[in-house]
């Protein structure tokens, strides 16, 4: 099978804490894979390990066949990985337009992608001059996703996009992520199982720093026992 991203048994420490104790994830090209698990299980750390913000001490991460573990984040990102962190980490002191322009890796990228991006998030076009502080939570989240779409990314790492957003906004986001996944592979972290099950084709469950289960999303939806045991959902 053709995997764009392969995480092989990584161990990541934050300070003295052994956060990831063996996580393996395979993300097939062109698919959406959801990382599931309870709070503090290590989902966010897994994404940060891929992008290099918390580099793993052991294990391998293969992106497009290239080993990327231990490289600096900007080198990893430049290979074509977009990171959308949790809590809508947009740059508050920059305007919406600047938030998008800063993500350009080549001159004129934003201009080329503008139609696609503003097609997904029409609101942003209207707000282009506004500073990031003046955006609502939903608008900030859309900007954070849009920012990752400016350069030619092959893979998006999206962390908790629906966190703290109103249901209407969540619907819009699901729609946008589904549309963009036609061209991009996505590794998604999502607490909201309903959102994850709507979007992802397959899943990996992380429990206490280990990947414990994986498979097709369609199977998980009907597997009440697994859902209850690992996610506390019924």
């Amino acid at each position, binding site marked *: 099978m053709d995997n764009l991203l392969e995480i092989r048994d990584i161990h990541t420490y934050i300070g003295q804490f052994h956060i990831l104790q063996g996580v393996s994830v395979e993300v097939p090209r062109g698919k959406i894979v959801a990382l599931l698990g309870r709070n503090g299980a290590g989902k966010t750390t897994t994404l940060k390990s891929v992008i290099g*913000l918390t580099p793993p001490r052991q294990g391998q991460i293969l992106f497009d066949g290239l080993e990327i573990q231990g490289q*600096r984040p*900007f080198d990893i*990102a430049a290979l074509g990985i977009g990171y959308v962190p949790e809590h809508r980490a947009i740059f*508050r002191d920059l305007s919406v337009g600047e938030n998008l322009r800063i993500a350009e890796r080549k001159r004129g990228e934003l201009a080329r992608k503008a139609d696609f991006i503003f097609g997904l998030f029409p609101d942003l076009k209207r707000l282009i001059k506004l500073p990031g502080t003046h955006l609502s939570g939903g608008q900030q989240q859309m900007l954070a996703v849009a920012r990752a779409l400016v350069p030619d990314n092959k893979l998006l790492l999206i962390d908790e996009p629906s966190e703290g957003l109103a249901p209407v906004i969540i619907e819009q986001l699901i729609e946008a992520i589904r549309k963009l996944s036609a061209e991009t592979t996505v590794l998604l972290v999502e607490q909201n199982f309903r959102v994850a099950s709507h979007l992802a084709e397959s899943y990996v469950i992380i429990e206490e720093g280990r990947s414990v289960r994986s498979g097709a999303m369609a199977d998980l939806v009907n597997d009440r026992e697994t859902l209850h045991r690992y996610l506390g959902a019924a």
Partner: protein
Amino acid sequence: MKGLLVSLRKNRTLLIVLAVLLVLFLLAIQGLGTPAWVITLLRGLSLSAIIFLVAAGFSLIFGLMDVMNFAHGTLFMIGAYVGWSAYVRPDTVLDLLPPVALLAAGLLLQPVWNALLGRIRLPDLAARIWPWVGLLLAAALLVGVLVGWPVSRWVPGNPTTGPGGDSLVLDLALDANLPRRVPASSGRGPVWALVGALAAGAVGAASLAGLSRRQQASDFHHRRIAWHTWLVLGLLLFIAIGAYLANDGLTEWLYGLHTMWMFMIALLFGVVFGALLGGVMEVTLIRPLHDRPIYYLMITLGLGVVGIELVQALWGRTEFTVPRPALFRGSGPGCPATDLASWLQNHCSTILVFGGRVRIYEEIFVILVGLVVLVAVTLLLQRTRLGMIIRAGVQDSEMVEALGINVRRVFTLVFALGVALAVLGGVVAGPRMGLSPAMGESLLLLSLIAMAIGGLTSFPGAAVGSLLVGLLQQFITAYSGVGIKLPFLAEPFKPTPPLVPASTVLLMVIILLVLPQGLLGRKE
């Protein structure tokens, strides 16, 4: 309209504080006569400009990198001394240029070594040891070169042949309107020393490359060496060879220049020197301590002390003055100038503003330099991609890096910029304050207070804070002569000298009690 109301409500406390400050300022003006308050205002602005030049760099560096650079005051002081040297003794600087430029050129070869070393595999032990041997070798080479290199220089501590004597000679020559006497040539240094300097730089760079190589897991991809590296390299070689071959001719030319041009060259030299010093400091001392704040604190404090000792060893402990350039020192007929035209004609040191005598260098030129820097840095931050990255990095440098931007290179640039601003401040402050090894400490303190008032990581905050601190200091000083008439006191209250620094701290305490994040700081 609605947006305006919202932002008014959001910043209510800030606006009230500013209104109170404005009222206090107007009251302060009322107590002084017209020429007195104009002069006090200009003096305050001039002090603000110098505080700002230190605070600006400090706050840019702290905002982006979370490094409190406590060496900033010392760097300001070093700037003043280096500026003096370029201005009063250009022959010494010229003598030192060839080996220093070649050393820098050698150090610039590091990316070349990085690319080469990526292809060599050494046994682990050898790979671990050779960089340290290399560093020792480079240091030994450098010492050998500098010992054998002829430099015409002053004798620190000696009243006539020391730096103070040089200043005095220039002062007298300027007052008598005589050409400057060109000092005796120090002779041409040996060519082997030049090769040695280049080799010391190259070996040092290779060792540093070797040291950083060990920390990288695998050779990921060989980055191409940027064209600007080659450009700077070529420029450095050109400067080194030019200064070596045409030393005597250049010395003579520089000594024949108008002192205003000499001073401008000194300003430019200071900026370039500061940028290089800052860049080297960041790469060699700050970067390896990545994310260890206590070590940042210790190393910058330590560097501050080392810098003071170094300056005392090279220029001596005694204070001395810097002669004002010829454009700002006339005192004969037609002085003080009454307007700009008459100043341009007579080059007076003072000009009449509302009937008061204002010193042109101290109270106008310095303010202008501060304004130019304020505008230039604001444009850089608001209008360029680099500025955009800096503003984003102040908030979240990890996220900037995760976008694929080499944040470390931006760190180096910002550190270089910050140090360059401090050094520029030192050069400008020299003729105003005089030179002493302790001049940086008090200024660092003032700029820290200014930044606390304005908001620690905010660049406009640094400007506003500097403005308030400078004005407050000068107005309190002015009132120590006139006295403030208070309702319950028979005698007017005259602030004593210790109250001058105390007043700024008091202002800081009051503002921080009302606005804990400073005037323009961001609420966390």
